[in-house]
């Protein structure tokens, strides 16, 4: 059974329609790559799944229950966590306060402060620093750690490599296998297609608010993805 399933999902910003009937499913323990150009609707889709977008059409079900229209703060308690684009750490809070706030929903599970500090030892050293005083890579680690603190069964990662140096991206991505090992499903939004293809089980490519390509990461070749990404050919897998 799918952990998450959207059927004909549509979303609007005011009069502007951002998603046009998205059908997507994520199975338990799966890592999904979500790719697409700027404005393709990737972030909108994540925001719709987390409950941050008010006006949705179609259906979303999570762990067998319909969740369309539920508020974000309730969905966290059901096990959906997001690492938002741009990290969105709370500047007034220290690293540790940011992480602790991530556990506010009170879901039981493997993740706690100690476990996060084991995953990202540098954060333990900087635990009392203001979160926004850290380097970009360290801030990204805080954002990931903060999301993990809610012990999610589905983790949404929005462009976690954005603006980071390649060596730092490698550090951040090194955490993914550990997260997978806790049987957390992951949706990974990335601009960097190569990065996604290395870690994802399946890919969805969005363009102009529609799924234009989907399939097992291993079964798709770069040409297919490029065509879907840029819309140079009608692609369907």
């Amino acid at each position: 059974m799918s952990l998450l399933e959207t059927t004909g999902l549509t979303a609007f910003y005011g009069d502007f329609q951002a998603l046009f009937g998205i059908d997507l499913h994520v199975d338990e323990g799966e890592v999904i790559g979500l790719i697409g150009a700027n404005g393709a609707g990737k972030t909108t889709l994540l925001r719709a799944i987390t409950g941050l977008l008010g006006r949705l059409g179609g259906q979303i079900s999570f762990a067998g229950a319909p969740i369309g229209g539920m508020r974000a703060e309730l969905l966290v308690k059901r096990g959906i966590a997001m690492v938002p684009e741009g990290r969105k750490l709370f500047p007034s809070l220290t690293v540790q306060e940011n992480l602790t706030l991530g556990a506010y929903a009170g879901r039981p599970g493997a993740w706690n402060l100690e476990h996060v500090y084991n995953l990202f030892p540098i954060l333990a050293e900087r635990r009392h620093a203001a979160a926004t005083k850290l380097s970009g890579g360290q801030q990204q680690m805080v954002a990931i750690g903060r999301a993990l603190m809610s012990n999610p069964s589905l983790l949404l990662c929005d462009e976690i490599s954005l603006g980071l140096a390649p060596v730092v991206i490698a550090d951040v991505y090194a955490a993914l296998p550990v997260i997978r090992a806790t049987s957390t499903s992951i949706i990974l939004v990335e601009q960097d297609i190569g990065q996604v293809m290395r870690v994802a089980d399946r890919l969805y490519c969005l363009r102009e608010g529609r799924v234009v390509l989907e399939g097992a990461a291993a079964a798709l070749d770069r040409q297919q993805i490029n065509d879907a990404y840029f819309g140079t050919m009608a692609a369907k897998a």
Partner: protein
Amino acid sequence: MIFWIDIIVQGLLVGGFYALFATGLSLMFGVMRLVNLAHGDIIILAAFAALAIVRLTGLPPLLCLGLVIPLMGLLGYALQRLVLNRTLGRDVLPPLLVTFGISIIIQNGLLLGFSADSESLPIGDLTTRSVTLLPGLAVGLYPLAVLLMAALVIGGLQLLIYKTSLGAAVRAASDDPVTIRLMGVDNRHIFALAAALGFAVAGLAGVLMGGYTSFSPSSGPQNLLFGFEAIIIGGLGNLWGTLIGGVILGVAQALGAAIDPGYQVLAGHVVFLAILLAAPRGLFPRMAS
């Protein structure tokens, strides 16, 4: 010499009232960026609520605090949750318009219920009791207690905001009311709690003020002005700064009054404007713009 020391000390004590007027206002602005133009009237509303309780039950006014503070807290929670949360957003105008309207509603409601007469809360001989600090320098016990209370309230709020997990949630909701929801925190609830705190402090301020000076349904805006001045002098978002701002305002007014009673309020405004010119962000700015 002792005359001027006396003036300054008396002014300092009055500053405790101004700091209490300002604290709730400062808290609500600090957390929600909401300028509550009805704050002065909320303070007066609390004083009249205490007056009504005194008249109905015969309780001593200060005991009414036990009832007025939770009632004001409830009112703050409900008002924020049902009305003010809906006005928050990118535009700064809606909260100003709505709280301005609430201010008018409260003033006229009080006029209907209590008439335009000046009232005061009978606190008995507490009004006149004093402590002698130096030979020739005695201070009123009541204003001294109020100043200490202001310091206690501000210290307590600081602890709450900077040392507790609820405080962390409040700071985070203030930083980013959208992302906080991804942590499972309902930002509407957090804002309503902050308003409840702000209103509770306003309730305390109103009842304490009612025991010290007379009040009428129209005295709210002046309290609001003094509160604003205390906040701006101390620096936005800094509660200890607000206490110091209140004290500076009190001392300036006392010195003005000593020169000529007509200069009391004017001297406060002049000092406020002078500080605003010299340090536009206040004496102890905390918030990054």
